[in-house]
């Protein structure tokens, strides 16, 4: 099994690659629609602006093959913006449409707390989670974002709070997504990636 990392031009691809390498997983970067259609497992990392990610997916004709692969049941892991793009849209960029795979929208975190929500925070588990299997409940994960999925829905398995409670881990059949950066979250982060790899195998 090889993980296809969608390389849409964002920043954290090398660190995701390194994190997978440390786990002994095979991965390759791609921005080609054909490769995405043929992928065994897909990983969408994401940093930066919602609109930049959505535009890159559209300009490179990746939206349709990506949505199709996810619906076909190909294991998918979205990281940070890669989680947010699963929703219909985001307040960060009202003019563009997300992948609309999960119901609801991405909203701004409340302004009475310091933003971005930057640093290490803990999770609150809502139900059984494959991604969090074997991870100490007190573990910290690294977050760096100002927008989040505030309306938790049926697919939210763990939340985090910063001014408001938001979806931190999402699992729905073959769809996995985390708002934090597992590739930057030390040992617990590595375990999340390993759990995804195990689920995809």
């Amino acid at each position: 099994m090889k993980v296809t990392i969608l390389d849409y031009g964002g920043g954290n691809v090398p660190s995701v690659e390194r994190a997978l390498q440390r786990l002994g997983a095979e991965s390759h970067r791609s921005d080609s629609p054909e490769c995405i259609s043929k992928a065994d497992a897909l990983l969408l990392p994401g940093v930066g602006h919602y609109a930049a990610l959505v535009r890159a997916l559209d300009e490179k004709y990746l939206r349709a093959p990506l949505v199709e692969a996810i619906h076909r049941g190909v294991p998918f892991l979205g990281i940070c913006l890669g989680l947010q793009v699963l929703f219909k849209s985001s307040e960060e960029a009202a003019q563009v449409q997300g992948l609309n795979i999960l119901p609801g929208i991405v909203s701004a975190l409340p302004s009475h707390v310091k933003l971005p929500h930057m640093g290490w925070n803990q999770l609150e588990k809502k139900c059984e989670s494959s991604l969090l299997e074997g991870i100490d409940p007190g573990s910290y994960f690294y977050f760096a974002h100002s927008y989040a999925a505030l309306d938790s829905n049926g697919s939210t398995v763990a939340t985090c709070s910063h001014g408001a409670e938001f979806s931190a881990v999402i699992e729905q059949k073959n769809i996995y997504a985390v708002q934090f950066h597992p590739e930057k979250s030390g040992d617990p982060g590595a375990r999340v990636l390993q759990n995804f790899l195990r689920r995809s195998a």
Partner: protein
Amino acid sequence: MSLAHRIIPCLDTDGERVVKGVNFVGLRDAGDPIALAARYNAEGADELVVLDIAASRDRRPTFLETIRRVAAELAIPLTAGGGIRTLEDGRAVVRAGADKVTVNTAAVERPELISELSREFGAQAVVLAIDAKRAGAHWDVMVRGGRESASLDAVKWAQIGVAAGAGEILLTSVDRDGTQIGFDVMLTAAISKAVTVPVIASGGAKSPEHFVEIFLQGTADAALAASIFHDDVQSIRALKEFLAARGVEVRLPC
């Protein structure tokens, strides 16, 4: 359950080796950045900052190679900077493996640099480094490695920088840097109160008590230090245990 206060070791480099000095002068060799990065990653550092304090154009490829090798050692975020003057400089640093870019002098000269970087990488990736020095009732922004005054009020500059798109402030007290008499609590509290983004306090740390002070009174979100970690004056693990015992929320390494 809330956001942990971050402890951030900083590697000041000449591009290739870690160097250190007092009040920005009198540099001496302090070690191999790759070995130090691996050590801090294992000891529970929450992030790492790597700066090119020489920032000479012809040494840039060496610094980028240092970033690449440091990044390879880390499972925590990496911030890099020093001599970032253009969007292209920022891109090179991000491509080499940095999660965040710091800007300093060039942003004072051309604040649009902050917006350009922020638009491309997001505010969470743009750290405005401010070197501040007490000048009467306020603090002056210092540039060119803390040597020259920019004739700019540090609190105002922090607000301008955040409005331009900086997602974090790395605040160094030029008065305290290298002195080991403690962080500048007043300066940090003033900036932290004035901006909506996280503030990293830097300059003057030695004892664990200094860290308690800067988090509780200085309301810093993160604290940065260099030589006390490099020289083993203070272990990150012991520091975090001390902070936790004093009621400061930190991420304790397992």
